[in-house]
């Protein structure tokens, strides 16, 4: 079991009233799974993603990631977990604008102390995996949207995390490029990576093996998609 959450609550104190963004979510994800979290905006799926991504801690409940209980870790410990266990892919790419593709991909390795030569080798390898070997010295503004997202995916992969967490990865891309990126995720899944996809688009979610529908801070329902239907 890679991820096991039990009765996760997230409550925001907005002065007079308390807002419950999550009301007792229990989810488990196996290694090698391809999971989509779906829900309309305001459903709590972003909050759930932040918790799963260790960017935030729950108000209540327990979250065990790869054998570590991360529910009550402090800022720096969470940073270490994120660096080691999670590769993020964001809707807006979130690359450092002034750094080359190669440096962007090296970034997670810088923070875990990988020596420079090893770092470079791993980053080049990751960029090769996403098909950008010829764009390594380009800066984000010299790349197309699809290429930027590929750099971001390479960055997510480079540290060999146990989980790739993608938040609306095709949200800022046109349909064709979005298709390419989803194909890339598919390939990564084939290679054994665990992927969690957060989206509000059913088309995108249909690439996953399993979909969790979130509404009003709770898991509304789960569906398992047969491999054949997932492949178009």
């Amino acid at each position, binding site marked *: 079991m890679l991820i096991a959450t039990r009765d996760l609550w997230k409550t925001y104190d907005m002065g007079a009233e308390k807002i419950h963004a999550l009301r007792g979510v229990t989810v488990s994800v196996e290694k090698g799974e391809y999971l989509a979290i779906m829900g309309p905006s305001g459903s709590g799926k972003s909050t759930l993603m*932040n918790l799963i*991504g260790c*960017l*935030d801690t729950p108000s209540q409940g327990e979250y065990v990631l790869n054998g570590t209980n991360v529910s009550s870790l402090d*800022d*720096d410990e969470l*940073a*270490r977990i*994120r*660096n*080691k266990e999670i590769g*993020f892919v*964001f809707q807006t790419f*979130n*690359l*450092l604008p*002034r*750094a080359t593709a190669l440096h962007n991909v090296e*970034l*997670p390795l*810088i*923070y*875990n*102390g990988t020596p420079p030569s090893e770092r470079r080798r791993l980053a080049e390898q990751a960029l090769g995996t996403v098909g950008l070997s010829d764009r390594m010295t380009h800066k984000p503004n010299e790349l197309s949207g699809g290429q930027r997202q590929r750099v971001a995916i390479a*960055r997510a992969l480079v540290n060999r995390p146990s989980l790739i967490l993608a938040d609306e990865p095709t949200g800022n891309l046109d349909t064709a490029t979005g298709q390419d990126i989803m194909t890339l995720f598919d390939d990564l899944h084939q290679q054994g990576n665990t992927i969690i996809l957060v989206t509000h688009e059913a088309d995108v979610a249909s690439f996953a093996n399993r979909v969790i529908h979130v509404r009003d801070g709770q898991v509304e329902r789960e569906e398992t998609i047969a491999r054949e239907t997932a492949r178009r």
Partner: protein
Amino acid sequence: MQWFESVLVALGSLRANKLRSILTLVGVIIGVTTVIAVVSVISGMNRYVASTINQLGATTFFVTKWGIITSEEAWLAARDRKSFKALDMEAVREQCESCRRVGGSVETYRKVQYEDRSLADVNINGITPEVLQMVDTRLQEGRLLNESDEEHHRRVAYVGMELKKQLFPTLDPIGREIKIAGTAYTIIGLAEEKGSFLGNNMDNVVYLPMSTFERQFGRHRSVDIFVQVADVQVMSSTQDEVRAILRARRHDKFKADDSFSILTSETFMNLYRSITGTAFVAMVGIASISLLVGGIVIMNIMMVSVTERTREIGIRKAIGARRFNIMLQFLIEAVTVSVVGGIVGIVLGGSAAKILSMTTPLPASIEWWSVAAGLIVSSGVGLISGVWPAMKAARLDPIEALRYE
């Protein structure tokens, strides 16, 4: 993350934001430049004064009725003291065993003429020949005063460079006759130029044999007794010996203070320090304000930089940067800017001091400690003014920071 990486990241972002980095630099440069220039001028003055005051030498002191007068009361008290006579000097010369040389000096200010040229308010010194061995004067031409001049009351004069310049601009002064307050004297020697000290022209001076001086100007002036000892070690014991001799001659009461003062170059140095010390501290303090302003500029710009790069911080944190990593990155940026500014400031401040000393009478000397202090202080300023913005950056919540537009 290694330190080296932090430095690279910091340098990279400084390079990426050139205008901002330059503006910050200017703030630090102005501060450090001002401080270095001021400190250099001050230490130059101190050195200059010290070397001038030390012309008396570490082995020479003199006894005077007057002493250092810093108030009207002190002046009134000194005025009522008994004057020293040539006989007092003779007594010291005879009785003091550890004294190597003893001499006497009296002075007045008179007009000096040569034909139709004249020079007013010249410092006229009547001295015994030993005094020329004790004060700093170097013979340029002719000869010094000697025992025989003193003994025979010769009307001869050893003169400073100012007299040559004003009275004999084109002539050789040796052997010529000048009139001091109406009486004729033959010039036998010319001293090397000494320049001016605290606005006092030290070349506007004439030395006469003391016997001749007293014959012309009378014996009522108090004689300053100059004493030279063989070794610095016996300075204070010799002073005590001389003090005992003179107290006995002047019948000073057992518990009363001396009715005279013993002055050394150290006395003058202390006086100079007490007069100027506070002023110098104030000058450095005022100059440091510009350094403080430089620090505030850094802090201000670092704050802007943190806000502007909120998203970058969010990305770095999401990817695994800890608080320490982010803090280090911003601190190194601040310190780098301030150290570079400090180095440029030291160069500029040093040059400013040099230019100042070449174009104005102000002396300047660039001290290694002021350079070191400039570097330490400027990097300290960078560190201190970088801490708050860096902490602000380090504490950012990654979720909020990633959402920042």
